[in-house]
């Protein structure tokens, strides 16, 4: 009906032989490459800002503060690639962690409390999935609603007290090392590797991209769109509750305000990694790099004692710029 369609449908045979762009160009304008370059620039910049920055131990240690968001961002990447979004993850972290704390206090023991927490994550994810898939509501507004709802429930369940006194073996995951590398860093590396391979080479990974490119065409091609999306939302809930548990271990306590505003950081990581906000494009590698980029930027500014005022501005600006930039790159390479 539109002009563009007329054009594609009526292309004379001669126009078929358009040459694809050269390979170097394909690699160079990939958003991940941009993220990687940013990472190098940020590392150099941070080292220049503060002499205390360039210390592998310190950077690895600082990573543990963002680790929970980073690991959720990996799944969020897949959700956004599939054309949806989930802004409720930080609230799911808080609610599942609060449930964990309350269950532990109620005498369930750590394994029982962990089971409660993980189950709650699955249920919350399924609830989001239900609203988005069965009720056909836009995920972005649904998860804004559940963001408020889950956080509110966390407050109702846990009040505003800090629930702690977990056994020693449970706490301090960020301060256990394997070859001088904190365990969270290793976990993040392994999870990134697994998800990277999954998304990049598995049949379901491929289908996630296809769903994000065109959910209707995906359904017509026999791809189980709803099932995969449900899976992603549930994975989101599950990883959020895992992140909540990791935070509980790191902080040795939980509170309803855990990870407040974390959704913004998660989206920031995914956007910085070059995932396309409209779905269909993005990689785990990009998100992996972006997590480090965020750590380098935030840590660099903190250790240079740059006031938080400036830090907030930089991060806000970064989010807007990264969305605009990845959007521009994807629109350019679309044709």
């Amino acid at each position, binding site marked *: 009906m539109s002009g563009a369609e007329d054009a594609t449908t009526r292309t004379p045979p001669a126009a078929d032989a358009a040459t694809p762009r050269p390979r170097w160009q394909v690699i160079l304008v990939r958003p991940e490459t941009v993220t990687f370059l940013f990472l190098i620039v940020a590392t150099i910049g941070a080292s220049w800002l503060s002499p205390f920055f360039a210390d592998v131990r310190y950077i690895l240690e600082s990573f543990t503060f963002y680790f929970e968001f980073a690991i959720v961002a990996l799944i969020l990447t897949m959700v956004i690639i599939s054309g949806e979004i989930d802004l409720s993850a930080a609230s799911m972290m808080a609610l599942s962690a609060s449930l964990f704390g309350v269950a532990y206090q109620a005498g369930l023991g750590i394994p029982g409390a962990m089971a409660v927490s993980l189950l709650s994550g699955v249920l919350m994810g399924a609830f989001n999935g239900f609203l988005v898939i069965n009720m056909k509501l836009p995920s972005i507004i649904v998860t804004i609603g559940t963001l408020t709802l889950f956080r509110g429930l966390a407050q109702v369940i846990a009040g505003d007290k800090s629930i702690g006194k977990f056994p020693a073996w449970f706490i301090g995951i960020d301060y256990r090392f394997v070859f001088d590398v904190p365990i969270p860093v290793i976990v993040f590396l392994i999870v990134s590797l697994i998800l990277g391979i999954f998304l990049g080479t598995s049949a379901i990974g491929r289908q996630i991209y296809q769903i994000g490119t065109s959910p209707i065409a995906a359904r017509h091609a026999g791809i189980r769109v709803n099932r995969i999306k449900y899976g992603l939302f549930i994975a989101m809930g599950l990883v959020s509750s895992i992140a909540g548990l990791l935070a509980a271990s790191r902080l040795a306590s939980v509170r309803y305000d855990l990870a407040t505003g974390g959704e913004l950081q998660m989206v920031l990581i995914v956007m910085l990694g070059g995932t396309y906000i409209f779905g*269909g494009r993005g990689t785990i590698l990009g998100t992996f790099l972006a997590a480090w980029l965020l750590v380098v930027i935030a840590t660099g500014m903190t250790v240079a004692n740059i006031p938080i005022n400036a830090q907030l501005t930089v991060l806000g600006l970064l989010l807007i710029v990264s969305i605009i930039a990845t959007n521009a790159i994807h629109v350019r390479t679309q044709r």
Partner: protein
Amino acid sequence: METATTSSAGETVISARGISKQFAGIEVLRDVDLDFRAGEIHALVGENGAGKSTFAKILSGVHRPTRGTLALRGELVEVPNPLTAQRLGITLIHQEPVSFPDLSVAENLVLGRDQGSVLGRVPWAKITRDARESMDQLGINIKVNVPMRGLSIADQQMVEIARALASDSRLIIMDEPTAPLTPIEVETLFKIVRRLRDEGRTIIFISHRLEEVRALCDRITVFRDGNLVHTGDVAAVDDEEIIRLMIGRSLKEYIHKRRTEIGEVALEVKDLCLPGLFSDISFEVRKGEIVGLAGLVGAGRTDVARAIFGITPAHSGTIAVNGKDIGVAEPTEAIALGLAFVPEDRAAAGIFQSLSVEHNITAAVPGRIAPRGFIRHALERALANEAVQKMRIRLASLRQPIGELSGGNQQKSILARWLLTDPSVLIMDEPTRGIDVGVKSEFYDMIGELAESGRAILLISSELPELLALCDRILVMSEGRLTADLSRAEATQENVMREAVPKSGVHSPTVAA
């Protein structure tokens, strides 16, 4: 029915000279010279993609011509946008009514027509009064203060016409206005159109249906492949000639000649119902058989196909493939049972526009490219390559986004996708829509070959000649019901159309998709 009068020698209202249009470097309209006269109904006919709609859109300011000029009563004019067109007295009534579903009928009538300051007060009382008046003028009974959302397509179409009248347009272009209408509504529309002509206005009537053209229009212009191939009085050409002009050759060339026997039942549909869309659909398609499914837009053909394939499953009834009863709730299951479906809306439901040809072709066979859940690229490449060769898909690289291919090659890729699943039943919904004439014949051959190889084919098409040439049998649907099952010998253009037009006189079911 009043017979069409030959051209009343009205003055030329608008004249196009050398109008050409390119999209992305591809010429879709070439040097069109055409005059429209006051007080005539002028038919524009041609196959899909012949350029008639593009031409109409240039006249109404939706597109701007790449070359060429328009003159209104002898004066050169620029029509950069629809609003200017409106001010010049040119209105395009789109095939699918362009409306604002949340606004009232009355407001839809005035929107974009009212001049004056944007901060000016909206004269609600006058708007409502005027709206009632124009409805009365048209002799239609539509409440003007209800939201557009609740109206049937036909009523929305009428509102569009009322809008054109209210804006006092001298040139009204109607793009396939009768497609969703019942005969009674068509008659009402025709009366209105004739009255408009008698008032000295010019009506451009774009249609597929030659009998409508014959009943209504004074002159006819035929487009083919972006060229104007004929203009003249309707009375001066016969249908055969018009068809020949439209497709450039005689249809008889395409006729599928059967070489093998028709086998056992491959697809059996019984008492399929989906309230609001279709009911009591029963038919069967045999191995090696090509069965056509004809009907007007909105008759429920596509809905039946979608139900069989599990996209919007039916509420009741059974579907059996190769004798096995199945309850299809998901396309995935349908595919596993040997069904394949080429959807009507290729751009939205067929291809993954920005993904590579390779990924498009292998989309339905994850099991074959990823035997253990992980994709083996060599395997995928080999499968895709083989399909490209077999289907003679013309492309620069397998990694090329499929959106860069021509419509025909996109459609071949979709067909290639399904052949990888080795389906026993292939359902095709308007497979040749928007495809070059040259590629079309290639497609007809392919459909024939597919049937020869023992597959059952259900072919939905609005191009009757296509169905008549290809099919062994033709099923006809009207208002959500099967009205006829015609053998090749019985099927003629007239027979099919007679069964296709609604009998009830009420509004045709609204199209859900």
